């Protein structure tokens, strides 16, 4: 286990280094932010001074080297626009993004798991067909359009819920969260639902495939031969086996939520990291773009690592070091 973890951490570090290099080179190779930052009537001397102040006069490899040096000290550079350390800017917005993503994740499990269980248990039936076609429709609805329709229906027409923004927050373990106030819930409900829909279709399909496979297995036939109730067979025998492959894929779906959160945050004007990214792209705030992307990549790497570890913890065949044969 220890050597496995070390190997995985090494791989993760390599991925981070490679991605940081690609993004840095890509972002820095294009456009000149100085032109956008100095007043249009600035003299050449002023432009040069600004360039030096930002360290942009150095060769690009040296700039990258300096950036890496800062990186290991937790310094992702300073935003050209906000004049604040990038890391602060991103971290300020992290709770809102994580809160939205996790709420959506829970929503998608609440919607997807039961549907997948039913469809998988009744594989081949009309119910199954209905659920599966419904799931195709759900993941064919572009996220942003579906979110706009939610706003149109629930905020504009019915006026039940606010159309965007984050509501009142409370403090839990030192972190601001909307989940403690009614106003917070009213604000997060639509964006979380928007973000969850695509994911719940994925959860449904995955669960169904796994349940269907499990229900056809020999151990389910054996459980039936023991006179175990169908309910217990589904919930305990099949679902427990389904959980293991499901955790792997669901972890990756959590990453998807982070990515699609960018769109949801834009649609619902949710003050998270994704919105910051889109704003920064529009104003070419390089340090923030690179910093955001690196933080997200790091989060992905961590999620993938956690998923792998969870997988080994859940499966007794792997956990105990036994072989599968």
């Amino acid at each position, binding site marked *: 286990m220890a050597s496995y973890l070390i190997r995985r951490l090494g791989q993760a570090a390599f991925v981070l280094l490679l991605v940081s290099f690609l993004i840095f080179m890509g972002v820095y190779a294009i456009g000149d932010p100085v032109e956008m930052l100095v007043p249009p009537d600035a003299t050449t001397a002023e432009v040069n001074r600004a360039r030096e102040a930002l360290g942009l006069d150095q060769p690009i490899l040296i700039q990258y080297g300096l950036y890496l040096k800062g990186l290991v000290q937790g310094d992702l550079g300073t935003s050209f626009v906000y004049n604040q350390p990038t890391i602060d800017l991103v971290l300020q917005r992290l709770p809102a993004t994580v809160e939205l993503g996790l709420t959506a994740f829970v929503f998608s499990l609440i919607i997807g798991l039961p549907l997948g269980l039913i469809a998988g248990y009744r594989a081949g039936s009309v119910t199954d067909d209905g659920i599966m076609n419904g799931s195709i429709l759900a993941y064919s609805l572009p996220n942003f359009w579906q979110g706009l329709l939610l706003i149109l229906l629930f905020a504009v027409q019915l006026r039940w819920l606010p159309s965007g923004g984050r509501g009142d927050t409370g403090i839990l373990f030192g972190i601001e969260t909307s989940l403690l106030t009614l106003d917070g819930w009213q604000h997060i409900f639509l964006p979380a639902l928007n973000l969850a829909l695509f994911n719940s279709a994925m959860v449904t399909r995955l669960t169904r495939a796994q349940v269907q496979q499990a229900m056809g297995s020999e*151990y389910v*036939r054996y459980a*039936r031969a*023991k*006179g*175990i109730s169908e309910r217990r067979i589904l919930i305990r025998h099949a679902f427990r086996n389904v959980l293991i492959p499901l955790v792997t894929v669901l972890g990756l779906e959590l990453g998807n939520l982070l990515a699609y959160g960018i769109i949801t945050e834009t649609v619902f004007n949710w003050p998270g990291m994704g919105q910051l990214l889109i704003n920064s792209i529009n104003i070419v705030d390089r340090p923030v773009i690179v910093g955001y992307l690196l933080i997200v990549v790091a989060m992905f790497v961590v999620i993938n690592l956690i998923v792998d570890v969870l997988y080994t913890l*859940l499966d*007794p065949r792997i956990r105990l070091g036994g072989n599968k044969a």
Partner: protein
Amino acid sequence: MLKVDNLVTSLHPGSRDQVDIVRSVSFSLEPGQILGVVGESGSGKSMMAYSLIDLLDRKIAITGGSIVFNGEDLSAAKQARMRELRGNRIAMIFQDPMVALNPVLTIGEQMIEAIQAHRRMSRRDAEAHAIKTLARVGIPSPESRMSAYAHEFSGGMRQRVVIAIAFLNEPDLIIADEATTALDVTIQSQILAEIQGLAEETGAAILWITHDLSLLSGFADAVMVMYAGQVIEIAPADRLFGAPRHPYTAALMRAVPVAGRTRLENLEGVPPSLADLPPGCAFAPRCPRAQPRCSQNVPPFEGDTTLGWRCFFPLEETP
């Protein structure tokens, strides 16, 4: 105790492609008796067993005959009633416990749930009962093994666990489908001896399904030979081994089964497809004694449910 009369089980029942896979099988079984059922793969022996306890796949169903178990007709019983009986009055042992036992649930949980599905018993009592039963089938230090998973047992121990589960609720009937096929010969004979002892002790009747006729000698009280979904010979074991009447039985006795194979190596040809049966005796194309008549008419079953055969030209009875 168990009386099966003209049982017919079919694939795609009622449709144009209906195929009978168990064709009018009759036999009876008394408490404590061991009936061996022999046949090649595809002979319908497993489907016959699954018919008895309502574990058939969705596209397969009983289409004729009756199964009377302790005075109750199971072919007409409701699903809920069958679930009450399964694992309780009728238990089953499968071929490969590695895939039959749930890989992610402990042995203890799988035993306790089998007890609690049929008896009102506290978890602690159920656990004690499970441990006692494990000890009875010869599992060393059963208390600690309760929290183990299937893959942590050796093949022989795994099969003992499954046998323990079968005996948990002291059933009247145990159906074992190729229960020792995956084991090597020494462990196989140990386990057979134990089952014999348990059956005697508890009075359970056993339906032992196998492709290996030799395994039944000295183990079964009676033997039923199946071919293409039909019973082609049934007889008390000593009588069948001493003087088989059907040429197929005789061929089976000469055959040496190869591990993992359920086909006969020294008998030419393969069993016929059930969807495309020959007009006469199903065995005629492979039979060394076949006459023209054999491929024109189906031979009737001669005898009763304890001694009989289905052949126009049976082998001589040599006393």
